[in-house]
């Protein structure tokens, strides 16, 4: 008998959300610590079973064959860990930030943290799900709270932006749903493992397979915001309350990538092999577009948002290789992007709190005033750039290694060219990253910033925790990487 461990990790935040809401009336902004405790519990539950492959299945609608299952294996571990850690530390970070955003309307803290918990639980559930319908439910569960969080506590035209965000993602999700239903009628099952086995062992017409894979891919790529499906992202990420941006971008959009790998790629490997080149090209264009747009931004949050689009291009690039190296690299890149971008969005929040500014051109010379912030920013960008000893180096190395290997294996010259162009595009990351650090933290201090002080300890602690983690994973990736590559090899049958 399996002990209910993972279900605790996912359901505890959901069940306790109303209690957090009620407690918010009494505790005001201190209720953030309660949310933090709940998420610590979830993280602990995940760490408890992180040692080996772990599976829990509960019967839900036996008539339709729908189960509720939670599975932690080498593939879902990096995702679950990233989501759990980020949502835990950002819960702490939210305390000073939301105090700054909400101010003295104590009634609202409860609703913020209740929605925050639901959002975190939705993401966790999605990456642990073992059943397609269950996956879809969690996939949508992360949408609704995040929509409300943006619409309620965002900036600018927050309601319109939240609305756009919801519609884009929901349309993608419906395409995914259509594909899930089609898969169900082809295979008669909704369990991911069972469907995978059946699809592997039956020859279905390629046209049908391509149709299902395309619908599914659209569903996931909207979430990943690759070029053409990215319209919602710069707005949503820039105008969301900053802790939520720090979850949206590093944790949530990558779940699209998880879906592509866990579901689409494992169901339809033939499709991915056949369309490897167009997907790689698409990914390259996303990298290029995101990087170029990031270079031209003045609003720091928009810059980070475009950088996320570009980084999702890397994820897709790795997937397009359809081999073990590239796909594992993508997954690891999700983790390193999550850490790096988590740091950077939180820093953007600190800048907003301390200077009330988002415009980079009005900042400058802040390194002397906020040394720790400056250092962390540098670490964040270096992770994205892929400096050796940060986790970004290993993941990018694996992604490009994977793509080049697959192009050599298939003898495709075009793909090799795309891979080399992709490598060159990484310079864009270095460009906008280091340039931003220079513009914000060095040079002369403008007059209106002379009174600025370093961010509060509570806000800086989560950032430093993440910065340390990037180095830990960068220097000693083995515990995660070994199991990851093994699972990718075994469960996806990739060499």
């Amino acid at each position, binding site marked *: 008998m399996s002990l209910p461990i993972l279900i605790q990790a996912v359901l505890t935040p959901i069940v306790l959300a109303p209690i957090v809401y009620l407690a918010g009336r009494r505790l005001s902004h201190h209720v953030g610590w309660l949310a933090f405790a709940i998420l610590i519990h979830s993280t602990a539950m995940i760490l408890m079973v992180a040692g080996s492959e772990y599976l829990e299945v509960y019967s839900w609608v*036996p008539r339709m064959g729908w189960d509720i299952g939670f599975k932690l294996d080498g593939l879902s571990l990096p995702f679950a860990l990233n989501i759990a850690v980020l949502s835990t530390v950002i819960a702490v970070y939210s305390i000073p930030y939301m105090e700054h955003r909400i101010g003295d309307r104590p009634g609202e803290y409860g609703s913020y943290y209740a929605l925050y918990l639901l959002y975190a639980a939705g993401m966790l559930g999605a990456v642990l799900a073992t059943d397609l319908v269950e996956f879809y439910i969690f996939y949508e569960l992360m949408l609704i709270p995040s*929509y409300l969080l943006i619409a309620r506590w965002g900036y600018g035209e927050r*309601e319109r932006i939240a*609305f756009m965000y919801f519609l884009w993602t929901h349309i993608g999700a*419906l395409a995914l749903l*259509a594909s899930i*239903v089609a898969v169900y009628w082809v295979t008669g099952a909704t369990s991911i493992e069972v469907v995978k086995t059946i699809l592997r062992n039956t020859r279905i017409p390629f046209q049908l397979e391509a149709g299902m894979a395309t619908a599914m891919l659209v569903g996931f790529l909207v979430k990943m915001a690759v070029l053409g499906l990215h319209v919602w992202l710069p707005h949503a990420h820039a105008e969301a309350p900053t802790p939520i941006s720090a979850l949206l971008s590093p944790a949530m959009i990558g779940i699209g990538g998880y879906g592509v790998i866990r579901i689409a790629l494992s169901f339809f490997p033939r499709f991915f092999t056949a369309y490897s080149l167009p997907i790689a090209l698409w990914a390259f264009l996303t990298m290029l577009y995101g990087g170029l747009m990031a270079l031209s931004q003045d609003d720091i949050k928009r810059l980070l948002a475009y950088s996320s689009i570009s980084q999702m291009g890397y994820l897709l690039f790795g997937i397009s290789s359809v081999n073990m190296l590239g796909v594992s690299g993508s997954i690891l890149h999700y983790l390193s992007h999550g850490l790096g971008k988590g740091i950077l969005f939180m820093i953007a929040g600190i800048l907003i709190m301390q200077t009330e500014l988002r415009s980079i051109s009005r900042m400058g010379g802040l390194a002397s005033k906020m040394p720790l912030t400056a250092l962390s920013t540098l670490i964040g960008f270096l992770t994205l750039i892929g400096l050796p000893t940060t986790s970004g180096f290993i993941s990018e190395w694996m992604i490009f290694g994977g793509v080049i290997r697959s192009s050599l294996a298939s003898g495709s010259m075009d793909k090799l060219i795309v891979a080399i162009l992709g490598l060159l595009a990484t310079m864009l990351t270095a460009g906008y990253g280091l340039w931003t650090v220079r513009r914000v933290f060095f040079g002369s201090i403008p007059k209106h910033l002379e009174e600025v002080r370093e961010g509060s300890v509570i806000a800086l602690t989560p950032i430093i925790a993440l910065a340390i983690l990037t180095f830990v994973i960068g220097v000693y990736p083995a515990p995660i990487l070994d199991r990851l590559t093994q699972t990718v090899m075994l469960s996806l049958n990739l060499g």
Partner: protein
Amino acid sequence: MVIWTLAFGCCTIPIVGWVSDRLGLRYVREWYSSLVIALAFIPYILLIRLVARVGVVVYPIPSLFHSILTVDMVSVFFILPILIVGFASSIYSTSYMSHDTGLNSYYTLLSAMILGMIGVVSAGDFFTFFLFWEVMSISSYALVAFRKDRWEPVEAGFKYLVMSSAGSALMLSGIAIVYGIAGTLNFAGIALAMRTPVLASDPWLILAISLIIVGLGIKAAIAPMHTWLPDAHPAAPSPISSLLSGVMIKTGVYGLLRFYILFQTLHAYWSLILSILAFLTMFIGNLTAMFQTDIKRLLAYSSIAQIGYITFALSIGTIQSISAALLHVFNHAMMKGLLFMAAGAFYHATGSRDISVLEGVGRRMKLTGVILSIGLLAIAGMPGLNGFVSELLIVSAAIQQELYLQAALTIINFVISVAYYLRLLQRIMLKEPRSDLSRVEEAPATMIAGMVILASLCVFVGVYPSMFISISELAGRVALDIGSYITSILGG
């Protein structure tokens, strides 16, 4: 028997009301009405057990045309939302209608309408069907126009009356032709007659069916016969709106389902007409709903769209699709009943149905706002709530029959509908309240109670759909099994 309980209620409510008025007791009549509907659950549960045991229960009614009531799984499935929404709206009415006059007739008509609906779904022949159909229709005309001192309800009620009775007349002529062909009004008898090729290929039958589709379609508000609904549903008092939109239009769907199966040989014809009308209905309902400024009108158009989904599922005609349609009937009854009640609570508190006036009211009336959000998210098909389950099953049934285009069109409609549900949610719940809402207070307890019943069912079915899926699948199976329907009514 459920009907006798309600009929007893109909007869006694005016007396109780009159007596309590004389004695100066408040709310006796209101609670008595709710009690009667609640008591109807007891025979209902006995009925379920009986139906589960014997399949089809037949009650003869001594009258001219050998009238019978036949209750099978499908009828039982339809009675459930009627009773639940009926009970919830009766409780809700207690405070919603408390400032009105003529409440004796209000509660009498309310239970007469519920009685009529239950009669319609348990009729075993066309005569009984039509009889209860008219009981239901007439009481609903009166209820729509209940606030007769204002022009809007009177106009809407009159429009509804004209259209609906035209529909009834058309349906009656259709029934007459069927009687002429089959020589019987009994459903099972007609189904048996349709097995004779000579009768089934009679060209008059096409006319008869068209007339019946129009008659039923008017009640079910299938486009282009839907025009009465957006006037009548908003104009009626809110508990009545939720009964009208939640369950009454579903009696039209019930009729379509029943007769669809009776005239088996004409399935291709039915399917084509129904699926064309279904998509017309969906698109008209959804696209028009986007431009509404009146919250109840928006909900009314959304009901039209939802009827489109149900009709589409019916038109597919497989066990999966019929059970999906049935489940959606139940789910929509809960969601739409809930939404109309929440809209009514806002109207009760602010005196306005204009969405721009209601902006931000959800922040003043937190509980009603949360309940409204549950309803809106459910009807928008968010997973974890009931609407998702049945919408998924409808699309699933379409894809199973390889109707990819239709499935895609349905999904497009889901997207359109999400747009306006979400915008409504945003405007009611998230916008800053206007200053003139500062004196708005939370809805009274009985109104909340009525809504909570439905909201908890929305959540329950969403989280634990297993039981309801099984029941609807059973009902779908029974509905399509015309052979054993005939045998169990007519014998061998």
